[in-house]
């Protein structure tokens, strides 16, 4: 796939009261056309600065940012404006102009301002696309947060950009609305072939729509890769802690620690954590092992999600059966790319 955005060795410092503050340090990033690329970090990690370097809202000290084969830092004002029309952007605070109607906001940046008919039909088309055709004459203050973000998305798409930058676009929204906005972004990506860069501090957002992710901390990228791989095999401590927030499989350690009656094992029982670590199509594994190996499986926790069209997550289960059967069942699962961790054994029967 051709590159949409290539960032290499990007460094930016802000002058501060106590010397310079390093906002970005030697950042390298490659976003291919058609990616939904997540940039994940805590607040102050530099992710907003990074995304603003992509459309030239921020200048950088060294390194290069190449967008659609143009080096952003070397463009003059006019060329930068042309490039920005090919990069839509949406914000956490929506930034709709309160003095203009929904339609007025969407057409604000329309390239061909003189052609009224083209402008009006484009606005209709976009409001249809985001499901707000009936709100054209409303003012932003009359809309809910989710509707405002939909208008902002329509506005960002008015000039048919190839790239959409989303800066914490769902952070101010409730979970249901977040869901619907993410669905819309995914839908637009599929229909329009958009490349989307998603800035967020919510791992759940990454899990839901991104295919690639970079985790950023203190201005540097600590880990990057395909979302599925990163969730299965997180390397950096920060990534691990982010991922734990999206899964409840870690709760088991608290239960073990507190000797919860829920996981009190009887003789012949074994407590395990199973995780999906490959993109194989899920099988009826629990049913298979209980039939083949004569094992009773008691599911304590389940957390299976679909990430990038593959099942991700796992189960915490208690297996009950003959020791040899249990051993064989575990071997069987391991062969099918299920990662098994034995958390607790019962005293031998």
């Amino acid at each position, binding site marked *: 796939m051709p590159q949409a955005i290539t960032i290499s060795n990007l460094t930016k410092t802000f002058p501060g009261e106590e010397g310079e503050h390093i906002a970005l340090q030697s950042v390298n990033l490659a976003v291919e056309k058609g990616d939904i690329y997540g940039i994940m970090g805590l607040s102050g990690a530099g992710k907003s600065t990074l995304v603003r370097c992509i459309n030239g809202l921020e200048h950088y000290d060294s390194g290069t940012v190449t967008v659609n084969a143009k080096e952003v830092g070397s463009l003059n004002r006019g060329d930068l*404006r042309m490039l*920005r*029309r090919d990069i839509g952007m949406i914000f956490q605070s929506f930034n709709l*102009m*309160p003095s203009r109607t929904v339609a007025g906001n969407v057409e604000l940046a329309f390239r061909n301002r003189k052609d009224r008919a083209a402008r009006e039909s484009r606005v209709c088309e976009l409001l249809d696309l985001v499901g707000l055709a009936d709100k054209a004459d409303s003012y932003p203050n009359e809309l809910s947060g989710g509707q405002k973000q939909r208008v902002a998305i329509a506005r960002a798409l008015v000039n048919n950009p190839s790239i959409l930058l989303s800066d914490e676009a769902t952070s101010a929204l409730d979970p249901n609305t977040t869901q619907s906005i993410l669905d819309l972004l995914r839908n637009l990506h599929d229909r329009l072939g958009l490349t989307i860069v998603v800035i967020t501090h919510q791992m759940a957002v990454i899990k839901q729509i991104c295919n690639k992710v970079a985790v950023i901390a203190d201005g540097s990228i600590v880990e990057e890769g395909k979302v599925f791989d990163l969730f299965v095999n997180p390397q950096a401590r920060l990534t691990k802690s982010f991922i734990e927030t999206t899964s409840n499989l870690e709760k088991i350690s608290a239960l073990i620690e507190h000797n919860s009656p829920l996981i009190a094992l009887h003789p012949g029982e074994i407590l395990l954590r199973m995780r999906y670590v490959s993109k194989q199509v899920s099988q009826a594994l629990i049913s298979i092992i209980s039939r083949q190996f004569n094992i009773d499986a008691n599911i304590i926790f389940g957390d299976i999600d679909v990430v990038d069209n593959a099942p991700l997550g796992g189960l915490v289960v208690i297996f009950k059966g003959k020791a040899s059967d249990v051993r064989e069942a575990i071997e069987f699962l391991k062969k099918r790319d299920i990662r098994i961790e034995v958390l607790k054994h019962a005293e031998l029967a």
Partner: protein
Amino acid sequence: MLNWLDHLFPNVMARLPEFFDSFVQTLIMVGVAGIISFFFACGFAVALILTQPHGLTPNAVVFNVLDKIINTFRSIPFIILAAALVPITRAIVGTAIGTQGAIFPLIIGITPFFTRQIQSALAGVDAGFIEAAEAMGMGTVEIVFRIYLREAIPSIIRVSVITLVSLVGLTAIVGIVGGGGLGDFAIRYGYQRYMLDATYSTIIVLVLLIGLIELVGRLLVEVSQH
């Protein structure tokens, strides 16, 4: 019906046409000086907002020079400024007295104040709107006219009302240095000839005028907000 007016304001009723003319002169001075200074103030305020340290086109020289000039003029009491401007007024307008001679010092007197007011109205435009406009690929001129000035309209109306009220006060002061208007009327008759009713009727008319300006301002703000 006019009997009680004759009784309460004998000197004013005797000079009713002159009183009315003075009122019209005040309106002309407030109107003309207000409109002209509005455009200057918008221009200077936009220049300050654009050239300020984190503005769209930062320029320390332009910003600081403009900033200092405004502060300097604002620190001169208007009555002294008006007197000091007499030679310049005469050179530019041809006369330093009457309504015509008053408008120039009024503009110089009110523009710095007006500029600060509009500057604060523009500064109140959410930085996020400006960022969004930049991200859309808008140029500086477009951002000034389609975002800054437009989104600040309710605030601009509000500060314009405040400024107009101050300007009414300044028109009364130019009465002292030879300008016309109600201030001149009140000073000549009310103050110099002890015709108290001239002073009181001037106060009543000015209070009503300011009330009217504020009422219209409030209505406009309401209409302009969504």
